């Protein structure tokens, strides 16, 4: 009997020590991929200097590895709880000189769908029928903005979704 009790306890302790072993490896909610083009030569990329990205309604600047002091390609998050995200792109915003900052604002309008991915990743949102709209001000550094396709689906970030000409 003692032997059995020992075995019971041993097996119980093994079973209780089992914990989650799954890590999220799948792609989750895609970010908006923007490529910057030269307005004079629309087939050529043109880098943006010292770009700062802000999202209206969320405090602080958005940082990730794609936003560097000179970049022609950025990936930025889209709001997953609203059908509109207002982006502020500030040219020369990250340098020390405040006088050369130029803020341009554009809207991304879309419909959302929540897709189940896996136990560890949970749900992601994909975006349908995305459209862009540039807010005109008296000194736009962005000349034109357009989506790659019409309607534009944003369901991964393997390729660009939006072109910005400047």
């Amino acid at each position: 009997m003692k032997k059995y009790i020992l075995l019971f306890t041993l097996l119980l302790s093994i079973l209780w020590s089992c914990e989650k072993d799954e890590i999220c490896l799948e792609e989750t909610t895609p970010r908006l991929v923007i490529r910057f083009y030269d307005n004079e030569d629309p087939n050529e990329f043109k880098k943006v200097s010292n770009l700062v990205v802000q999202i209206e309604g969320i405090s602080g600047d958005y940082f990730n590895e794609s936003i560097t002091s000179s970049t022609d390609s950025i990936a930025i998050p889209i709001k997953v709880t609203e059908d509109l995200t207002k982006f502020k792109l500030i040219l020369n915003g990250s340098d020390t000189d405040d006088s050369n900052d130029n803020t341009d604002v554009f809207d991304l309008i879309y419909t959302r769908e929540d897709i189940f991915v896996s136990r560890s990743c949970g749900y992601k949102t994909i975006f349908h029928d995305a459209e862009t709209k540039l807010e005109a001000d008296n000194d736009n550094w962005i000349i034109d903005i357009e989506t790659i396709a019409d309607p534009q689906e944003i369901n991964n970030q393997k390729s660009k979704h939006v072109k910005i000409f400047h």
Partner: protein
Amino acid sequence: MLKYFINIIILFFTLSLFSQDKVKDTSAYKDRYGLRIGIDFFQPIYSLIDEDKKGLEFVVDYRVSKRFFVATEFGYSEATTQEDFFNFYTNGQYLKIGADFNAYRNWLGMENIIVVGLRYAYSNFDQTVNEYTINADPFLPYQTINSATSYNGLNAQWVEFVLGIKAEILHNVFLGFSFRGNQLINSKEPDNFKNLFIPGFNKVYLNDNGFGFNYTISYLIPLYRK
């Protein structure tokens, strides 16, 4: 080196001598055959500690030959599972049917069992996703979505490999433990969700396998001797 060989040979001879000790004259003794009915007492006790898990399981086996038993388990289970990004509730019932082999050679008159068994299992159940948070860039504010989306009429079939023990602690009363390795054969999956927990199967791991266990107390109703 030779010394070890000789030692091993001696050891084998000694072992074979031991195996000669078997009691050959069993003709006078007749084994008891009967129906053993029991309950998994772990689940009711566990639900006192963790109120997210509730369930009840009955176990029945019937001896068909000296070392074989037909065995079944059936019950219901409800569980709320919390994951990193969502929370869901599963409830349903299940039935498992199969056979047990007693791998233990008892002394005369003893009826302890080391179970090696196989089961086919079926469950039908409902899943409800209570709430979830979208897995997106951490710069975005977290917002929990209370979806309460139900997926009804789901089912699953799987096989279980059983390892366990049953010991007679009082006359006709057995205490048992079994460990089960499960492999899903097929399941009816919900749209835009996955069967991550199945009653009777428990947590479904990435490669469609899982494990379970039970602690049983059962009573043997002796029917005849053979």
